[in-house]
């Protein structure tokens, strides 16, 4: 099995903070990785680097053999943790926008996802509730037949039922020729999907490995390990 992501010694420094420090890991094709850690641990920075939106200070990052840039942006489907869509757009216009710029955007799949999420193309982004915007954004991201899906807190604004719908859609659409990295605080809800887990704290990798292996070795769920690693209840 080939590695879709290869990261070695990745460091990202801002003016007076180090967001990531000497991060090294690989993610195999067909795997889903859970990126876990408390707020400010560097999860979002790592995801932005993979999405080509932040440049690393040092270290190497390869996605499908390429350094983050224009080529990788065409094959990485990124869901930021904030609403990145313009308020003037309708859901359909957002779909047109994605279709215009991403050759891997599947219009039919987008329509199917909208139906699952109970959204219509003519709804304005500016008039949707937070949860509905989240559903629209997830529909856009999953409608792409990307090589790598990078999802930053994808379930934040969703109610439990919607979360379950999204997870079902996610699993149903997941292909073995792509990989996914998910950061979430809702560990219990999604840990069953994780093949690998990466625990970050203050920009450093504190624990990493195959999810099943970690469960066996540590004798608990990923959520239990999370509590153990960070020493306080952060999960919901």
């Amino acid at each position, binding site marked *: 099995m080939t590695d879709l992501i290869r990261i070695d010694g990745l460091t990202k*420094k*801002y*003016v007076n903070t180090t967001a990531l420090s000497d991060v090294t890991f690989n993610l195999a094709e067909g795997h889903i990785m859970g990126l876990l850690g408390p707020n400010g641990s560097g999860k979002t920075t790592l995801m*932005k680097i993979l*999405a*080509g*939106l*932040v*440049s690393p*200070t040092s270290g190497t990052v390869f996605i499908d053999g390429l350094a983050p*840039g*224009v*080529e990788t*942006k*065409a094959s990485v489907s*990124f869901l*930021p943790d*904030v*609403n*990145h*869509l*313009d308020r*003037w*757009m309708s859901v359909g*216009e957002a779909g047109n*926008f994605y279709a*215009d*710029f*991403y050759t891997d955007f599947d219009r039919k799949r987008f329509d199917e996802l909208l139906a699952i999420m109970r959204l219509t193309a003519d709804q304005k982004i500016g008039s949707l509730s937070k949860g509905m915007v989240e559903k629209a954004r997830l529909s856009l991201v999953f409608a792409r037949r990307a090589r790598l899906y990078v999802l930053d807190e994808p379930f934040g604004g969703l109610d439990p039922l919607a979360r379950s719908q999204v997870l079902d859609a996610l699993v149903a659409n997941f292909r073995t020729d792509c990989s996914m990295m998910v950061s979430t605080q809702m560990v219990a809800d999604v840990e069953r999907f994780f093949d690998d887990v990466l625990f970050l704290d203050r920009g450093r990798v504190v624990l990493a490995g195959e999810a099943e292996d970690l469960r066996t070795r540590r004798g608990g769920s990923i959520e239990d390990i999370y509590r153990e690693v960070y020493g306080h209840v952060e999960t919901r």
Partner: protein
Amino acid sequence: MWKLVRYQLRGRRLLYNNGLITMGALTLYQATRFIGMQENPAQSAPVSMGVPLTMAFFWVMFYAVMTVINIVTYTQDLYGDTGYLVFGLPLRGAEVLGSRILLLVIDTIMTLLGGMTSVLVLACVAPGLAEQVRPYVGRFLLTGDYWVMCLGVLAVIVSFMTIMFFGVTFGKTLTNSKKHLGSVFSALVVIAVLWSSAQLGLKLETTFQGWHLSLNPWRYMPFLGAGTQPARFPLVSPLMFVTLGVLAFAATSWLMDHKLNL
């Protein structure tokens, strides 16, 4: 790049509609002022000419607002959430920046055409002494030198905006700052570049004193002070400024491609 321009134009449709409706209403208002003046044929030329000049001022204001909006939306994209959409696209920095420049050119052409329409409308209803202007307006708008002057002004404005874009991008990328430090740096970079270019421009104009452009855009406006005499326009400093704009474009594109920090 064209797709991005199309998308940005779509995002601004409400702004354009409101702006152009406002300018149309102002033109009609000025036209009614002219119509009112027709009842007094002895209206002095300066008073009559004040009406189209006021209209021209409104168009300059319209353009200034559009230019500020250009900078603000670009800054918002770099500092705000919508940047994930624009800078996450599989496009090179030059294409993203190029779309902004094209948008600026479209704004300029729209302002120019809108301003010309206003002038033509006002010329048609011009009263009293201002009526004498009417035969000259069409010929003036078709004067080659007038369009050369417009192109020169456009090149300088585009260069100025590119330097602004460079300043904003530099502040956000090279400082590695998430928020305020970047904004301060952006402002400092813009001020430093503009001040240096002004100094350099003055030096170049002194060194190359004989180099200038003779244009006669007001050839068909004999009643203006300039009359039929050609006017001398600076050549070296605008060329230097345009070169600076090209360099700023290249540097900004490189920063977007290699040093992006959203």
